[in-house]
């Protein structure tokens, strides 16, 4: 009996603490099951998973660091342009100097710099993040278009070089890009959950006035978050160019809505203050599974977006209900009884 109660208590604690993550995990599993039932042949084939894990990282990686921005209660629309910027810098560096590590580092630094500018603009100008990053999105895309004259640069000649293979190859059928995205996820998860920086991100997203009152340097934390997001987006841009073997100016644009959607599907609240790296990772996996699954089940590719739309709207509706409930709870705040208070 005692054991049963403690098990129930354990499950209820687990449910309360990890509700969103459990739901997202179940959604992913349910969708996989549905697609696998529709086309057992494809989903028992390792090649299917190889291409799933090849496509997914490009949605997942920007979504991971975008989670930080959304936890702050903000949004970044410029990361696809930052992806293109870093990819262009890499392509230029490699086509000039050959496939060097320095080229990769330079491309990452440029991505971080673009993120830093976003952070400074958002904190110092007083502009809302959506407006500020809309502006920088056009700006960086314009810079890339001007710099490249709108032409692509092939990176296929370098595909046997060490830097290329470290970043983008296969290890027993598993694309290295999915391993990189797991690595990025772990680093960002540790920072968010076990570091003072992550603790401050959550507080700022919850109550920025309280954060300031209690002495947190909010502007600095926000600038760091944008810089980190720029760095990670730059890395995603590099992987995108290496995955397709080509840089082209519009390389990041496909991921704008997908990565934002991945964050929201993963349970990060639009209003900020709540969000998990795990959720965004799975959100990215879900979206890329839909793409894979729809095609492999023999439906037209157009269905992909229909299903993605339904999933996104459902996720946002669930969030909206949570936000409404929270507001209601604030309005009808229950008063503690003397008994509860222990007096």
């Amino acid at each position, binding site marked *: 009996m005692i054991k049963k109660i403690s098990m129930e208590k354990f499950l209820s604690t687990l449910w309360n603490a990890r509700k969103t993550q459990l739901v997202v995990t179940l959604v992913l599993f349910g969708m996989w099951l549905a697609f696998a039932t529709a086309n057992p042949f494809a989903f028992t084939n390792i090649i299917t998973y190889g291409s799933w894990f090849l496509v997914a990282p490009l949605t997942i990686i920007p979504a991971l660091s975008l989670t930080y921005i959304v936890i702050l209660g903000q949004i970044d629309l410029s990361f696809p342009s930052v992806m293109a910027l870093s990819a262009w810098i890499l392509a230029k560096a490699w086509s000039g100097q050959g496939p060097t590590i320095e080229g990769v580092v330079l491309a990452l630094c440029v991505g971080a710099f673009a993120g830093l500018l976003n952070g400074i603009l958002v904190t110092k100008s007083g502009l809302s993040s959506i407006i500020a990053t809309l502006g920088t999105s056009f700006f960086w895309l314009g810079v890339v278009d001007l710099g490249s004259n709108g032409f692509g640069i092939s990176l296929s000649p370098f595909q046997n070089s060490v830097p290329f293979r470290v970043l983008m190859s296969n290890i027993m059928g598993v694309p290295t890009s999915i391993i990189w995205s797991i690595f990025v996820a772990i680093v960002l998860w540790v920072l968010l959950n076990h570091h*003072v920086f992550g603790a401050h991100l959550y507080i700022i997203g919850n109550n920025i*006035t309280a*954060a300031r009152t209690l002495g947190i340097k909010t502007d600095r934390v926000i600038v760091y978050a944008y810089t980190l997001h720029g760095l990670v987006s730059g890395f995603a841009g590099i992987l995108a160019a290496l995955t397709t073997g080509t840089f082209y100016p519009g390389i990041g644009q496909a991921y704008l809505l997908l990565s934002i959607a991945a964050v929201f599907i993963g349970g990060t609240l639009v209003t900020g203050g709540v969000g998990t790296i795990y959720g965004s990772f799975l959100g990215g996996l879900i979206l890329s599974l839909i793409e894979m699954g729809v095609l492999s089940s023999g439906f037209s590719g157009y269905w992909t977006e229909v299903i993605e739309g339904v999933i996104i709207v459902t996720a946002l509706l669930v969030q909206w209900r949570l936000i409404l409930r929270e507001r209601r*709870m604030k309005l009808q705040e229950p*008063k*503690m009884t003397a008994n509860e208070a222990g007096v």
Partner: protein
Amino acid sequence: MRTEKFFRAVDLVKTFEGIVALKHINIDVAQGEVVGLVGDNGAGKSTFVKLVSGVYRPDSGYFLINGKKFERLTISDCQQLGITIVHQESTTADKQTIWRNVFLGKELTYPLGFLKINEMKRRTAELLEGLGFVAERATSPDNVLRNLSGGFRQGIQLARALDFTANLAILDEPTVGLSLAESQIVLDFVSKIKEKGKSVILISHNIYHLYPVADRFVILDRGSKVGEFLKKDMTIDDMSRVLVSIARTGHFPKEFEDKNIDSNPIVRSTYD
């Protein structure tokens, strides 16, 4: 008998666009003393708190803390000096857990900024127990704050004042909006801080909340300090009469003149 003061605010003046919010205010606290700062709305109580916490900068005047002079204080000064402030506005992150809220802004960390999560949880559990919050749903440091009542949330803000290094806790209207039982918990808590030898400036417009826990009362009215009384010289009815008189006329009754320990002539001239 006045003992050595740990904290002194000397001749503080603060104006906002020509309107004087604080006029030459002197407030001090000795170690282990509870000073009740009392006054009606607009008396300047919250302005005083914001000057101490570094939100505002005084136009003139200074602070003497442990004998060291500060022209102005910042939030980090307060942290280093062991001054903890519980603001009237909510300073909680409601979507976060209790333990994160208790250590909000002063997280315990290892080198490189990694959080000492287990230690913070353990200390939070101790604090919750010490606060007397015995309801089961509130006792786990992992519970999310938004699921708790207003009294608990206020308790969390107070728990921060029981900071392990704090010497002085400044509590700005901690009982506002709380039920009777919740207010009692807060006042018991103030006594607990005092028992630990720490100092408290307890700010309230309710003398019935202040009187049982404070050792001394400083009365503010329309930005001026109008009087200062020791608890031993005044009954709660005396204090109540003084406050009502000040609210109505700007003066306190003449019979309490000799009990006013404040000798600042500027204060008196304000209403003479």
